[in-house]
């Protein structure tokens, strides 16, 4: 049903910490692995060993460079997958009802058996979160591992998205962003988490945490740290006194 729910019970989503992501692509591949075996059609790889390989990935890590006036350039690794928007344009454009936003948790899914592969939802998404599978010709997207987070066949601690479970640096967090007391909401509040392209009016659930200030090491007066500064009294004299105190 492609009408968006007026309200969802929860808003499950990801918080991605751009201060911590080292760009290792672990999340990209764990996602590929899990979703090749689970939810719907496998994520195919066309021309897998050829000149122009092109596979379906639900999560990709971009790299941006940010140049600044008064400080060295920064590199920011930038993982991106479906943001499970509250006002998801990909859902309302779907002609068949294959795309829908779950009322219970806000996860945006594609019911692949109803997908005609028209591609319009991918067009409607500003973020490039949807990819048509080259082999199966249905639209694939991040499911927030809906088949993990409620999966009773998995141990409790593993009921989180594959990308979050695998992230070596802990740059990905999963939780309910409708609950102001949840860890993820707290993190967003504390670190000034932001939306991607808010001007697109999509109201993304997923949030990004900005890189902390970089290259801000200011120089305290090293001499002031010293008591007494050896330079003032001669190194050997200082050494002698310091050893005496030991």
């Amino acid at each position, binding site marked *: 049903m492609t009408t968006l729910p007026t309200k969802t019970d929860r808003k499950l989503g990801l918080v991605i910490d751009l201060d911590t992501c080292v760009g290792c692509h672990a999340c990209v591949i764990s996602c590929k692995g899990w979703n090749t075996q689970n939810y719907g059609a496998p994520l195919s790889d066309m021309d897998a060993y050829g*000149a122009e390989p092109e596979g379906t990935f639900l999560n990709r890590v971009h790299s941006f460079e940010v140049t600044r006036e008064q400080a060295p350039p920064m590199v920011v690794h930038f993982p991106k997958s479906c943001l499970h928007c509250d006002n998801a344009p990909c859902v309302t454009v779907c002609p068949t009802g294959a795309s829908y936003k779950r009322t219970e948790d806000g996860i945006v899914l594609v019911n692949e058996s109803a997908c005609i592969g028209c591609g319009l939802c991918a067009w409607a998404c500003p973020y490039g979160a949807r990819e048509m599978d080259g082999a199966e010709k249905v639209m694939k997207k991040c499911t927030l591992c809906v088949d993990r987070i409620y999966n009773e066949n998995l141990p409790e601690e593993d009921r989180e998205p594959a990308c979050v*479970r695998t992230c070596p640096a802990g740059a990905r967090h999963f939780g309910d962003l409708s609950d102001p007391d949840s860890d993820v909401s707290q993190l967003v509040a504390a670190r000034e988490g932001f939306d991607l392209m808010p001007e697109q009016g999509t109201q993304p659930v997923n949030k990004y945490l900005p890189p902390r200030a970089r290259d801000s*090491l200011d120089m305290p007066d090293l001499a002031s740290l010293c008591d007494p500064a050896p330079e003032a009294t001669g190194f050997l004299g200082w050494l002698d006194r310091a050893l005496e105190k030991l």
Partner: protein
Amino acid sequence: MPSQPTPDLSPQVSDEVRKTTCYMCACRCGINVHMKGGRVAYIEGNRDHPVNRGVLCAKGSAGIMQHNSPARLRAPLKRVGPRGSGKFREITWEEALQTAVDWLKPLRDTAPEKLAFFTGRDQSQSFTGWWAQAFGTPNWAAHGGFCSVNMAAAGIYTMGGAFWEFGQPDWDRTKLFILFGVAEDHDSNPIKMGLGKLKARGARVIGVNPIRSGYNAIADDWVSITPGTDGLFILSLVHELLRAGKIDLGYLVRYTNAPYLVNAADGPEKGLFLRDDAGKPMVRDRATGQAVAWDTPGISPDLGAGVEIGGVSHLPVFRHLADRYLAPEYAPEQVSDRCGVPAVRIRAIAAEIARVAFDEEITIDQPWTDFRGVKHDKMVGRPVTMHAMRGISAHSNGFQTARALHMLQILIGSVETPGGFRFKPPYPKPPEAHPRPHAGHNPGQPLDGPHLGYPLGPEHLLLDDAGQPKRIDKAFSWDAPMSAHGLMHMVISNAHAGDPYPIDTLFLYMANMAWNSSMNTSAVMDMLTDQNEDGSYKIPRIIYSDAYSSEMVAFADLVLPDTTYLERHDCISLLDRPICEADALADSIRWPVVAPDRDVRPFQTTLLELGARLGLPGMVREDGSAAYKDYADYITTHERRPGVGPLAGFRGNGDGKGRGAPNPDQIARYIENGGFWIDHIPAEAQFYKPWNAAYQDWAVERGIYDSPQPYVFNLYSEPMRKFQLAAEGHGDRQPPDHLRARLRETMDPLPIWYPTFTDAATDPDEFPLHALTQRPMAHYHSWGSQNAWLRQIHGHTPLYVSGEIWAKHGFQPGDWAILTSPHGRITLPVLRMDALNGRTVWTWNAVAKRRGAWALDEQAPEATKSQLLNHLIHELLPPKGDGLRWANSDPVTGQAAWYDLRVRIEKAPAGQSLAYPDTGQQDSPVPPAPRNLAHQV
């Protein structure tokens, strides 16, 4: 609202989870292999595993695609075309093994040194070394020589361990972390996890790297250092810390040789420690002013004043150290230009180190007792840590730079303290506790001892009576006296040149020496195919074992196909390259979670079979039958010392920790336990390990040592001074004259910095730039490209150039560059990157592939839009006109100096769309890869 679809929220994930150890890189994380219908369906990290705690990198999760790689070899191969052509015929294992025995048996009986057996990134070096020792050839080593031996050896000689497998920052407590150089390629998940911990609590990370990518991208502060100058930068930090008196004198007095008196009397003892009659180094007691043995109870050792004996003033190590580094040449202003780092920045970093180390001291209320018997009621730590690997290691000044780095950590008193750098058992282990190298070979006899070790002076060099190197790689010769890991990168070059002697059979395992694991790749391919006048090959025979259709396969005469990592037994052994944690002893296994579907065998089992057929000692029983059924049998029953074997866990009746009789159920117990074994160090033994009596006793109990081995850190390296003394003309063993000056300079017992040999000999106008390679985090050496998932992430190797170079050469997107070194030229597509040292260009390592290798399409971007920087790097320095072959290596350890490379860049002619040089094409010994994949088990 109408009802929404109801997807299956609880699908069955798998029929069974098999827990083993990853082998997608050398990190050795624990993995859960999910099986469906007997097939591998999904791989994730093992939450219980000490290395990765459940997380897993891109490579690890892509293991399934490596396991299913179309490049997997299928059966033993015998070459039928010329070398390099890739033309093979599949043969039976019987024929393969018999061929190998027919080649090797006569060598063992007449000249075992004519077998050169070198292994690459395998994790069974204690096993392959044991085999080579039994065979009797001195020519065995693994890949450490072109990897990180500078870091490892400098660490062992300075403090009894280095980074990665030797130790790690105290991630849970450290407050300032400084990362030097390229480091993404080792210990990858633990470092990412550690960085994550630091980030979670907002601790500062400083990255010292010409390139701000990966870990450096998240560094709070980035120092865009010029390659090869890290040592100078570090010594400038030391200068600043000394100048401000921000060093831990108490620590230096108690735990280092800083107070040792250095003999100043001219003669063969000059620069060695003053020793008492019992041979103990002496210190000056501040109370009496007398020189006494360093461990005399109740003394107060001096660091500044020396003693005068016979009119000569013998000063303590620390005095030499302070005098040297307080010199104005190390002042930030003096090093700033050379390092490409503003002086204020060096000052600021020194100040931050000082502030965190001394103002943010950590205390743990944990009493402990030191080796002197002194009781301490708490553990005090200085929470500043550092990490470095190849970035500073792979230079011709890498050993001394690594020494400088270790010295810096020691001076602030952070090593083995809470919040500081912590050793992982079986480290700390000082050089004295390691073996010495051996090369005594006799026909039909095993070698006289282990191949590799730590020489403590010229007397331990492996030289024959004529002073010539005994090893084909010239390890432990005057060329590279402390080459603790051997010099694998010199083997092909030396074997081809017959220098120091010709060999017959080159036997390689898991080392892509015809490609990315050699410097000077094009020339190495020529050496491997070069023929004598009679048409025979200069390197007569090459046996190679690999699981995949690598470039090296095409250059072998006989190929012994290995299994994938999910089809084999392995042990990650304490005897080898262990996976311990700073607070625990740990080892692990691999086991066949699936059986091979091809006619392939685990290499180690093959090696045991060869050993049995050759009748090697230890591999046959008295009746001549094979001593071990297979590698699993070896892992379980082999004993290196009584009660100590490849695996430390579940020994004896299953309770044995470290020591105990072989337990036939040992592997089953490991499998039951998730593929690993872990044994935590008692709380009172967790820090100050080299000096902590509780740790020393625990280590003996666990079989790490046979007796306590407390020691002090070597700020001043006496073994190095011994080599230097030889270079000055003292002693029986004298270096050849052409090496004297170099040894005198570079074997300095206190850390020094000197320009890399390439920098020193290169005209900066002709070759103004440094060129580096980095390994992408999602690839491991050449393996990534056969992996359908990973090759999509990194399928080509753009050359990253700074905005300045971009503008200067008028590059546009889509342009290509010609990169020229004194040795060769390559072409690559260019990409702009501003977060880059302005004097540096770089590209990805080992993504480039030879056409026909790795079951890839001939038009694959790995072959057309990628190139190895290796083509530009010679294994030798440019000829100096003396007729000698000067290795492009560190003069102390022989570590390959990859990162010394200097280049110039030009814009390639318009229309270029293919990478050069052309390395030709090899036939693929495996069937063509499937076109499309939609792999659901």
